[in-house]
């Protein structure tokens, strides 16, 4: 077990500022030499209370999509390895930037960088090795923070398999993006209800084609729209489920997946306006 460190803030800032000029060092896996130049007595590594057996934590992807990316299993492993991390600590970029640059550098390169070059490479390094922004969307772009947070937000210690929803979340990339990069996904109750709903409808959320992507995006838009004039958070589970059912029918109707558009029996129209004549 090795001690987990984090970079001083100053080192994070300097590294982030120099991504373009250091891109080739990231690309060939030698960025640690640049990191070493920034660490000295005045800005030493910061020791944390965490310990880690990095070699056994994450597997590189074996393919380009779905389970072959290994996100679900890696998220579970990372969450187990950092099971005592608090949300406050897990929002600290210094930890994730150190983990991405030192113990998990190869994983981040294999999972997110691949053969990229030029501006795309720089952009990818900036978003995946760093926390490029101040809010949770930036955390969800970091290669490791997204795994830990995805597992943390879906972990249910009362369930037979506490990581059942984690596997559903990471089954498709658009699920992660559309649920966790939207505000409603921050509500654990809403998030878990939506994921259970996905699990109940494998015909729409488990295909390998483009339909699932469109349905997930459509449902996320429905949730956002509904959040514009009320709180999904205070809805009962039953009502939330009804809302998702009605939203799915609307989305499928709009996509032409169903011949019979559901608007006739839809009681969830955003504008429910009746004026006596």
């Amino acid at each position: 077990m090795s001690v987990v460190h984090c970079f001083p803030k100053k080192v994070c800032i300097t590294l982030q500022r120099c991504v373009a000029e250091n891109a080739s060092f990231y690309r060939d896996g030698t960025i640690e030499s640049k990191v070493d130049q920034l660490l000295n007595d005045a800005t030493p590594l910061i020791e944390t209370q965490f310990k880690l057996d990095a070699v056994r934590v994450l597997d590189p992807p074996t393919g380009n999509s779905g389970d072959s990316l290994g996100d679900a299993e890696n998220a579970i492993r990372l969450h187990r390895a950092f099971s005592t991390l608090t949300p406050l600590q897990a929002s600290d970029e210094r930890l994730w930037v150190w983990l991405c640059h030192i113990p998990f550098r190869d994983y981040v390169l294999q999972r997110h960088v691949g053969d990229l070059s030029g501006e795309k490479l720089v952009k990818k390094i900036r978003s995946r090795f760093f926390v490029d922004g101040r809010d949770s969307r930036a955390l969800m772009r970091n290669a490791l923070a997204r795994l830990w947070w995805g597992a943390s937000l879906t972990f249910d210690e009362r369930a037979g398999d506490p990581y059942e929803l984690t596997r559903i979340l990471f089954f498709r990339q658009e699920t992660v993006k559309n649920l966790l990069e939207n505000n409603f996904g921050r509500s654990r109750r809403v998030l878990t209800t939506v994921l259970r709903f996905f699990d109940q409808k494998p015909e729409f959320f488990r295909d390998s084609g483009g339909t699932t992507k469109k349905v997930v995006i459509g449902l996320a838009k429905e949730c956002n729209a509904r959040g514009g004039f009320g709180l999904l958070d205070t809805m009962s589970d039953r009502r939330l489920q009804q809302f998702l059912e009605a939203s799915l029918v609307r989305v499928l109707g709009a996509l032409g997946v169903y011949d019979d558009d559901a608007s006739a029996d839809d009681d969830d129209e955003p504008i429910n306006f009746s004026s006596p004549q």
Partner: protein
Amino acid sequence: MRINERCYPHPVLGHASDGQEDVSGSMFQASIEVGFDQTAVFFDVHMRVNNPTIQKLLSEQKAEFVVHVECGQTFYRRAERSAEGSWRFVVSKDLVNGGVEVLPVICARGRIDGYQVEGAHADFGDASFAIEEGDFLAIGDPFEVDVDVTFDVLQKVSSIMELQRGEQPDGHPMEVDFNGDRIIVRVSSTDFANFRLCENNVAMQEVAVCMLSLPVLIEAVQKVVATDDEGLGALRWYKVLRAKIDDLGLGAGAESLEIAQHILESPLRRAFAMLAQQLENLE
């Protein structure tokens, strides 16, 4: 939760567009006092509404007071609900960081058919609305609370301390050396071996913090707060501790025991909680 300029599909008390209030002649007042201690943020909520339609819905439990709390940096999002207008809720500081958005509202608790609110703008005419569970009926002013974290949430305090196997015989008290960049704590071989065994157990770690780190830290704090730094001022542990004590801002009258417990973030509470949890698991 930020509320950008928008129009609602039904009249909402407290909302106005183009300078025209959806509902006039009544008000929704929300006063939320925010307090802090080392580990938590306290919200004391006082809400009041004098619109007869909404008052009636509240009394019939068809509506409820809600404070929506959201932290963009930590994925924290909760709706704190109450049938009464005054209550207190607490958010652990472990769950939030930086700006926390707070929005007071009154929401429908279930479907309300034929909703017509007294004082609705004339443009709504005789229209009635089907309100769904969760819909806003009244909305207050959103505001942001800045939850400052004054200590390094990741840095291990014991990084300024190092435990070493000493040469003293079993039963001999631990010895502490403050003269290096790290504070060196030396214990007997047996104590050292037993400490290592405890290290992999979370509950035991917390107990060990109370047994080892707390008394050493108390002594270290005494040295830092003393006017004469005994020539220790250039040492790394001293500088780290000095910065932490300044960050805590406890004032000149704070005792070393109190300061050390703040720095270690309530070690007794955590140790007892962990031990209690272990006991529960055993049962």
